């Protein structure tokens, strides 16, 4: 399947990957928390795109591209411009580096986030592995 980021096909492929990847399932077995990806228009992305992922105990229970940002109140929000999201997915930007250099804004319970950095890093690995193209 062609998985161009960001888009419905990419999100579907990502959900499938998270639900079938054995390593992610193990590492994220204690993770409880849904998430927004808020991708701000930049480069070839002309309007804001918001993706929702419901992550629970190593599985993705659902995902959607959200038209109304108020439709969910997720535990975590990751927000960045399109270019930096794409660089993370292409392996050009380390996700921790993105956060520490103010390229990626993270909102949510930081205790949970810092307790689960390995989960976050493996989550990014899965996203990278299904990303075939960016805009």
């Amino acid at each position, binding site marked *: 399947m062609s998985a161009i980021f960001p888009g419905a096909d990419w999100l579907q492929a990502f959900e499938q990957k998270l639900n079938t990847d054995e390593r992610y399932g193990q590492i994220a077995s204690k993770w409880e928390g849904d998430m927004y990806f808020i991708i701000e228009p930049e480069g070839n992305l002309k309007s804001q795109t918001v993706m929702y992922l419901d992550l629970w105990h190593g599985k993705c229970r659902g995902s959607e591209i959200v038209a109304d940002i108020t439709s969910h109140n997720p535990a975590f929000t990751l927000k960045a411009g399109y270019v930096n999201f794409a660089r993370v997915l292409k392996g050009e930007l380390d996700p921790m*580096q993105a*956060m*520490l*250099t103010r390229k990626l*804004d*993270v909102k949510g319970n*930081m205790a949970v986030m*810092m307790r689960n950095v390995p989960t976050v890093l493996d989550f990014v690995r899965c996203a990278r592995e299904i990303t075939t193209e960016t805009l």
Partner: protein
Amino acid sequence: MQPILKINLSSREIETFTIPPAWERDYLGGSSLAARILWDTLALSLDPLSAAAPLLILNGPLSGTAGPTVGRFVVCGKSPATGLWAESNCGGFFGPELRQAGYDGIWLTGKADKPVYLWIHDRNIEIRPAESLWGLDTYQLQDAINDEIKRQEEQETGQPENRKTGIRVLGIGPAGEAQIPYALLLCDHGRVAGRTGLGAVMGSKNVKAVAVRGTGKVPVFDPAAYAPLRSAANLALKSDPMTSVMSSLGSAGAADYFNYLGEQPKKYFSAGTLEDADKISGASIAETILVGKTACHSCVIACGRVVRLDDGAKRKGPEYETLVGFGPNLGLTDPVTATRLGELCDRYGVDVISMSGTIGLAFRLYELGFIGTKDTGGLDLSWGNAAAAESCIHLALKREGFGQILSKGAKALAEHFGAPGEAIQVNGLELAYHDPRGASGMAIVYATSPRGGCHNQSDYFLADIGQVDASLGLEFFDRHAGAEKAANVAKHQDFRTVNNALVLCVFANVPPETMLELVNAACGYDLTLEDFLRCGERAWNLKRLINLKLGLTRAGDTLPAPLLRTLEDGGAAGYVIPFDKMMAAYYTARNWDANSGKPNSNKLSELGILGLAQEAGL
């Protein structure tokens, strides 16, 4: 900057020292400027605990201006622990209060014939008797001085003194009085100038404390330009993800991650994993004993922890170094124990890194068979024995029995028991709890820090996980990269030297461009980022020259042997630091001679300090 108050405690002469404007511009402030001011004074033959030794407390050009985490000050001199350059910066409110009193520094020389404390209220200076204060711990001391001054003012005015506080006390505990070589200075809610033993220097001068109250305005060159910059910088800092981590979880916010990376030491750097190590983190504290937070002057982060233990009392919670030093370092995983042992160190007035590092070494030597119960007075120094660790603190501070050798620090302890290579120290200073096998840049940082094994001259462990500002030309290298990152480390050191000149908290993720704008507005400069880094590089090289004057040689640029061996498990398992290659690349990047470790003449000339080197015969 404002004048420095210069006090000769032997003669009780008080004068002011005006900082030459060229020095201010070349060194900015803080420890960089202190190095220039003390250059002439520091010599190999100078006993750091003698009357002739200086103790310089200094602000930065932004101290007290309510900029982003700039309410700090630094204490400098010659270290009784290392014999080398000493600096240790500190938060709280003392520095801004001193600025408001009209001074940007206090330069102590000489020795009082009896214990004294200094009372500086605006431009009024008093040297007061402190015999009744001698022996008090660092928190009792603050209360006693506040009470004394309040009582006196009530008597003078005939009115009850309703001021909540308004007096800031920087003082020493019994450890400083006893001149323990790793004694600290403490102010406010447990904010410390902890490293390099400057509390002992203050104690050697018979000075128990400096109390300050200032009511004046903090000078800013262009207030109209500065105010909006400051507000914007604080707002940006407040919304930074790192701030969010530090604010909600304290300085141990990343402890879980460091544990995962194998960067958090276990059992005195001898193990890569420890069961229940995840109980030692900012998140763990937040989930169990945390009841509040504290902040230094005008800080939007508030990394200070307030915890409540079984006795019901609120107290300072442990930051990262205390949590690990009195945690996994000793085979312990209980935040309550770390809190209690950290508080004990604060009250006695000793540096938690040096104290816990020395005790960690004792535990390790016990495990290896260099020490037995006949040496310890019966103490069982097995990993995880919290009661034994507490006994070690008491014994060291009283210099009783086994404590006599503990009181001298890790290097002396290891030498005493015939295992000099086992001490995790560089040039006499015990390393902080960031294992360079988990973040290799720290290998160079520890080996070349101007104050010994220190993590605050460059917190490269953060650069090794991605905190690198491209505007400075810094790059992101893999945490296990080798010589290729040496030039990057040097540049990061220069940048953090600027931080330490501004006495900016390292926990603040402030963009360098923002810092530059603030400095230019506050001081009336037109510096560029390149100038900024040059100021850092100049000070780094000047401190190198000071240490060469004080007897440092190339052989001092080293790492303890245990860190050059591999760990068997954990996130850094199997990794060998390519130390020699990294150091060779570092000398090239620094333009230092690889054999002597001395900065080359053309580098010193470029930085404008060749003349100083020549006059010192270097």
